[in-house]
């Protein structure tokens, strides 16, 4: 299913897996600002400025890591980029299909995995045969085919996360926005996930991943750090000197999820 998209990527002048800034961005945001605070003047509440004139561009075929401390606004940024949250200021240009894998699986607990694919596939405009084919493909690849008739609230955290990721991928989007997508994955699934991202980027899909693990830095074409509300490109900098990186990723577990 990804070979077709590679042809499309070349014909569109996409830059391929080396990414870079030479092509046309598939997702562009500029001047994003977001502040959380109470709607009414309630005592003992505070206003938190999360984003302050943040700019980001994502290009076809590149894989971008978004890093930053806990609470720095990474998930907020991603929600604004996919359209799940309104920014207070700034603009987002989305002219391509987007797949979003939120940190917490926003799924319907009482539907089975099979029904979940049917519902979200219908939302994407896919026909029943296509939904079944893609569902079986990801179930086999990520190892949850035994659980297709399980309700989502009866799945383990790891299996729920596999479904969460597959829902983001199933319509073969041009841009994938993944918020710590491998939380709870076993080691084999974790490796399968990275294999999958390589195939997708080779086919021209742009991927942005929120990550805490420094050991994954070599997998990214670019690394953007979110600090004090703004994004800066820290690709190639010494990761151990940057705030917000989880040192557990360097040694203790080799970057396992």
């Amino acid at each position, binding site marked *: 299913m990804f070979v*077709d998209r590679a042809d499309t990527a070349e014909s569109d002048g996409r830059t391929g897996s080396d990414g870079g800034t030479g092509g046309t961005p598939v997702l562009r945001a500029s001047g994003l600002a977001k502040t*959380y605070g109470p709607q009414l003047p309630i005592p003992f509440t505070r206003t938190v400025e*999360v984003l302050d004139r943040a700019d980001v561009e994502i290009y076809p075929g590149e894989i971008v890591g978004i890093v930053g401390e806990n609470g720095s606004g990474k*998930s*907020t940024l991603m*929600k604004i980029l*996919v*359209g*799940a*949250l*309104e920014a207070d200021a700034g603009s987002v240009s989305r002219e391509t299909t*987007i797949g*979003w894998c*939120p940190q*917490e699986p*926003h*799924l*319907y*607990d*009482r*539907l089975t995995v099979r*029904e979940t694919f*049917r*519902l*979200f596939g*219908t*939302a*994407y*405009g*896919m*026909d029943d045969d*296509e939904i079944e084919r893609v569902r079986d493909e990801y179930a086999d690849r990520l190892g949850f085919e035994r659980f297709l008739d399980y*309700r989502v609230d009866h799945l383990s955290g790891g299996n729920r996360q596999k479904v969460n990721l597959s*829902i983001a991928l199933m*319509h*073969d989007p041009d841009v994938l926005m993944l918020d710590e997508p491998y939380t709870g994955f076993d080691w084999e699934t974790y490796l399968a996930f990275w294999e999958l991202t390589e195939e997708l980027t080779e086919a021209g899909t742009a991927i942005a991943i929120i990550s805490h693990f420094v050991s994954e830095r070599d997998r990214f074409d670019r690394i953007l750090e979110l600090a004090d509300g703004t994004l800066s490109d820290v690709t190639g900098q010494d990761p151990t000197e940057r705030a917000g990186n989880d040192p557990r990723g360097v040694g203790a577990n080799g970057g396992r999820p």
Partner: protein
Amino acid sequence: MADAREAHGGVGTAAGRGRRLRAGVSSHVRAFVRTPINVVLLIALPIAMVEGYGAAMEAFPSLPFIDTAQMVEMGRLNGAMYTVAFFAGVLGLFQVISALQADERLRICGYSRVELFVSRLVTVVIGSLVITGVSLAVLWWSTPVAAPIAAFGALALAAFIYGLIGMLIGAVLPRALEGSLVLVFLVDADDFFSSGILDLNAAILNVFPLHFPHQLFRDAVFDGTVATADAVGGVAYLLVALAVVSVLYVRLTGDGGVAA
């Protein structure tokens, strides 16, 4: 691939909208039925309320400002009305708040806010019709109903109105406990003051949500008649509620749907 998707009911086509609505309603109904408390309430609430209210009114002392004719029957009617209003209200409330984040993800995947609203509304209507049928059956078992179809219509009207009120509360106050408490007190007071047990003439009672349904229900059960003015008033009330709730739902369930 995009062309193929359009041909199979893509995002912008009427066929696509119909397919999304069917998928949405089917999923919401499944989720509703798979929640055990809903099924228990569907059966237990009508029995407890209809018979409980009847027994309570039978034990009520005779007071000068209370119409004591047919007290037991009036109690059962109130129980049936309370049941459909409360159940539909809670159903509407939880249709809105139980899956705000999943709904928001579904919107990003292709559903419009209007489609999400309509699919939730149709689910509320289906649940309202079921609870109306069960409540009327329980009432009919112990109390003669002169015009069953009109009685069903009056109860269903009450259920639809409170289903919408539940959705409104869910959109404005998206919290289970607070929203449920508001509904309990609202339905209780509305059911009591609109019931006609007290001989009240306050104009404010005419705008209570259960005012018209109660009038229609009493007439249908006791006399087998339908007053045109009450029927028109009840339907107008429903349409106004539908318009208000539609606008507020679409406006209020957007940005806040996904927790920051």
